[in-house]
């Protein structure tokens, strides 16, 4: 047999080639997504207008992109932290739901004076998100229970618990929809400047804290050991279990905070479906960013643009929000595939053997 081409493992590749390949794959992903949108009924000529111009060059949309980005940055960072500990935390949605439930509990029961209400809600959101992450991580560490399944099962339990509250005890009697009563004005994340939400600076500060945690703190150093090889880490005396526990609980707390950002930042109340799309986006953001907090912040901005554009598509063309999920999946498939071309090369082999 005369094989003309052979696949080889590439040892190294210059960074600019890598960047070019990743950019190329993103463009390919966007082209595929554009095609899907055209098939779904968006006029081809309107695509650029809808996505790029209306979303990024309009001050108000740009604000909503930044606004949308903050919870996405939180779930993205939460994903980064857990995945660095080799823990597939697919429970971001459940942790987010419990974060928002914790924050809403503070408002429902009027705990604390108005001045300290918001910090108390943030603490409650982080604590509840963290608590919802404890069971799967302990089960994994003590009993080797597969965390992919356990965290997903806990999501479904959290969703049903949220519905139980929204259709039951916490339903706003004045509203036909399954929503909690509106938060008081001092329970909402305040705005500053020209209508920018406080959630943006909070997200940036948390991103810096995660950056410090991963790159500078002792736990972050341990985490890098665990990420590279848990066996080696254990034999050089790194407290592997404690490091994984810490990273996953941190991840749960951030997901909880993301829940608060949606409830107290965007909706102004707890709703029955506020979490939709976030858990999945957090995982994909962390994957796209290769668990790097700065890259995750950038990826979250990209995904936020998609969210905002997706909502306007929903309004103008009646395209379901699931389109956003489909486009995200297409982008991730393309970017993940680009890794193949970075790690391998196709070499022409002289025939005639």
């Amino acid at each position, binding site marked *: 047999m005369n094989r003309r081409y052979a*696949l*080889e*493992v590439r040892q190294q590749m210059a960074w600019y080639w890598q960047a070019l390949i990743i950019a190329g794959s993103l463009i390919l992903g966007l082209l595929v997504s554009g095609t899907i949108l055209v098939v*779904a*009924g968006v006029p081809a000529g309107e695509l650029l207008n809808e996505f790029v111009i209306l979303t990024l060059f309009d001050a108000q949309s740009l604000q909503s992109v930044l606004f949308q980005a903050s919870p996405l940055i939180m779930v993205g960072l939460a994903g980064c932290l857990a995945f660095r500990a080799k823990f*597939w935390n*697919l429970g971001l949605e459940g942790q987010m739901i419990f974060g928002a439930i914790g924050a809403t509990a503070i408002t429902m029961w009027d705990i604390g004076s108005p001045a300290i209400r918001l910090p108390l809600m943030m603490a409650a959101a982080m604590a509840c998100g963290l608590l919802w992450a404890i069971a799967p991580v302990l*089960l994994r560490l003590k*009993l*080797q*229970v*597969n965390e*992919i*399944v*356990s965290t*997903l*099962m*806990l999501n*479904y*339990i959290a969703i*049903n*618990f949220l*519905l*139980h509250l929204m*259709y*039951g005890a916490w339903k706003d009697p004045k509203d036909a929809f399954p929503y909690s009563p509106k938060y008081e004005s001092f329970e909402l994340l305040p705005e500053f400047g020209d209508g920018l939400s406080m959630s943006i600076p909070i997200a940036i500060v948390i991103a810096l804290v995660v950056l410090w945690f991963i790159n500078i703190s002792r736990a972050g150093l341990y985490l890098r050991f665990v990420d590279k090889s848990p066996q080696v880490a254990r034999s050089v005396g790194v407290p592997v279990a404690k490091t994984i526990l810490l990273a996953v609980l941190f991840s749960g707390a951030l997901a909880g905070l993301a829940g608060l950002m949606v409830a107290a930042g965007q909706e102004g109340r707890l709703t029955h479906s506020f979490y939709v799309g976030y858990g*999945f986006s957090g*995982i*994909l953001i962390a*994957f796209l960013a290769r668990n790097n907090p700065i890259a995750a912040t950038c990826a979250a901005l990209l995904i936020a643009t998609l969210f905002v554009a997706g909502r306007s598509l929903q309004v103008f063309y009646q*395209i*379901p929000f*699931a*389109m*956003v*999920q*489909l*486009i*995200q*999946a*297409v982008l*991730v*498939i393309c970017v*993940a*595939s680009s*890794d*193949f071309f970075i*790690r*391998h090369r196709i070499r022409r082999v002289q025939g005639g053997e």
Partner: protein
Amino acid sequence: MDLISSWLGNTPEFAVPFALAALGLIITEKSGVLALGAEGLMLVGAVCGIGAYLTFEQTAVALVMAMVAAGVVSLLFALMVLVMRINQVISGLVLVFFCQGLTTLTGTLMGWTNQPVPGLEAIALWPLSELPYVGRFFIQNVVVYLVPVIFLISVWALNRTTSGLRMRAVGENPQAADAAGIPVLGYRLAAIVIGSALIGLAGAFIAVLSTKLWISNMTAGRGWIAVALVIFARWSPWKALAGAILFGCIEALIPQLAASGIKLPQYFVFMAPYAITLGVMIWVAISKRDSSSQPGALGTPFIREERT
């Protein structure tokens, strides 16, 4: 006891999707490919089954097209894990997300949501169907009766045919299989497509024969429960079938409880299958059964150029 009789009668309807999805997962995973995409592929089977029925009005055609559709979509997964060598966990998750988006979009844009379909007539297996209490268990549609046959054929193919044994060799030790001249990627591709077609059938069963309509994300985590089921069953098809019947019993109990007038908080009842799955996983972990039955190369990509 009317209650027990109708509970037993409804069990197969709930058990069949778990059984078929778990069998599909076992077939794929025996070849060494970690398959997490069941939730997504079931949705593909479900939406395509309904779509095909609404178009052709033939249940058999709908079921076959659902299997074909899931097989075709699984080619994307095969491309990711076999050709592009992307992490199999990520590939499985992305497949689920991709299918969730795709099926919701297709269902909505084609107007297939909430369109009822008639399903299949139940056939009574006389004289078993005349038995007291358990009689209703033997009045089921033809697909339910086919499930044991599908299991028998699959187990026979996995354990008794050359292809089946080669496929398992690929899953246990791809390097050795490669050295023996077995096309590793070819067998993995076949395992992915066949397994996914069965998972697609499981989804179509839910939509076309059980719920009899399409709602977006209607599988509601059953694909993930099937993933858990494969772990409890230790990759054994018969144990998976037993587990599927157990879960079918639990799911069938939910509408029974509602019908019998027992007042329970509705959403806590809906939580039950997930909580029980978690409980069973913990129980299996505590009883510390050996993990030797897991395919040796599960989750590791086969990269010929990097063989040592």
